[in-house]
């Protein structure tokens, strides 16, 4: 029960402080790794959520919740992720016209964006270092993936190919 309450709070917090799935990765990493999941599992969660269709945020919640506390863990994490946007949208649709003039909310998010980006840089570095091989093989794969995505290749294809290359490399 304690675990479920903890899961609920973490996902509520993460979904209140981020505006999309990919942007929540940085914050979620700090909140979940070592507590609910291992480094390896977190990489799997992010990797597969970008590969599978549909909302990344919900998939991250489902994976981490399930890994930490089975099906009930997954459902609790899911509920906590759905609540903040739902409540906010219902409020906004009711008081839409008043909120439109409240520029402070837009400014808050504008201030949030650079901080989220920086947090993601830190997270990317940690995932790179601890998730696997940080030697020449990891660098090569990382740089190649970066270039591929920069050239607008679909991210999910790049992630899957990198994984397959990893499997082949580990059997050599």
């Amino acid at each position, binding site marked *: 029960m304690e675990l479920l309450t903890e899961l609920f709070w973490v996902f509520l*917090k993460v979904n209140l*402080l*981020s*505006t*999309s*799935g*990919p942007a929540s990765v940085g*914050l979620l990493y*700090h*909140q979940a790794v070592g507590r609910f999941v291992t480094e390896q*599992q977190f*990489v*799997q969660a*992010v*990797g*597969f959520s*970008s590969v599978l*269709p*549909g*909302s*990344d*945020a*919900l*998939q991250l919640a*489902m*994976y981490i919740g*399930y890994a930490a506390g089975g099906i009930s863990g*997954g459902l609790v994490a899911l509920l906590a*992720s*759905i609540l*903040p*946007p*739902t409540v906010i*949208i219902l409020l906004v*649709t009711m008081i839409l016209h008043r909120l439109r003039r409240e520029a402070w909310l837009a*400014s*808050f*998010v*504008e*201030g949030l*964006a*650079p901080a*989220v*980006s*920086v947090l*993601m*840089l*830190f997270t*990317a570095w940690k*995932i790179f270092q601890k*998730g*696997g*091989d940080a030697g020449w093989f*990891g*660098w090569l794969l990382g740089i190649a993936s970066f270039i591929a995505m920069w050239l607008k290749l679909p991210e999910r294809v790049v992630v899957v*190919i990198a994984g*397959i290359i*990893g499997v082949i*490399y*580990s059997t050599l």
Partner: protein
Amino acid sequence: MNDRKFVVWLQLLWMFLKVNLLSPSGPASVGLLYKEAVGRVMTEEQFVEAVGFSNVLPGSEALKLAMFVGFAAGGVPGVLTALLGAVLPPTVMMLAVAAILQHVQHEDWLKGFVAGMSPAVAALILIVAWDLFQVGQSREIGRRTMLIAVLSAVALWLNLPSPLVLMGAGVLGVILFR
């Protein structure tokens, strides 16, 4: 009358099941949803407004957009129907993947797969971070944005708790971007 409402809900449910099965993430679903929703359940102006709000408000992007479209088409029941359609496909799939992965967690090939995926995931996060950094800065990255970025970097370097850093950055945004 009730029958017509029911048809609208079914249409919404089907629309969101489809969009969420075909698009990999929230931002990617915007284009697909545009084709499905504009002209049928809402005007282009409403859609643009919905996208704008989805970018600004906290929580999953795909969900927020779904709820706005659902509201325009069928009020609060429309919101709940759209929500259901948007939540089901990704979570059911992920549950299956998570369940399978837990069983093979200690297999060697999965370790290799994760080792290969890590650098690609790190690269993906970098790309998303860069996109995010540019949001709102239509032409160049302003000095105030840089200031917040540098302050956040220092705070994170000093191991300050990340939720606190984000809250601080948001508050700073309210002060700086008036």
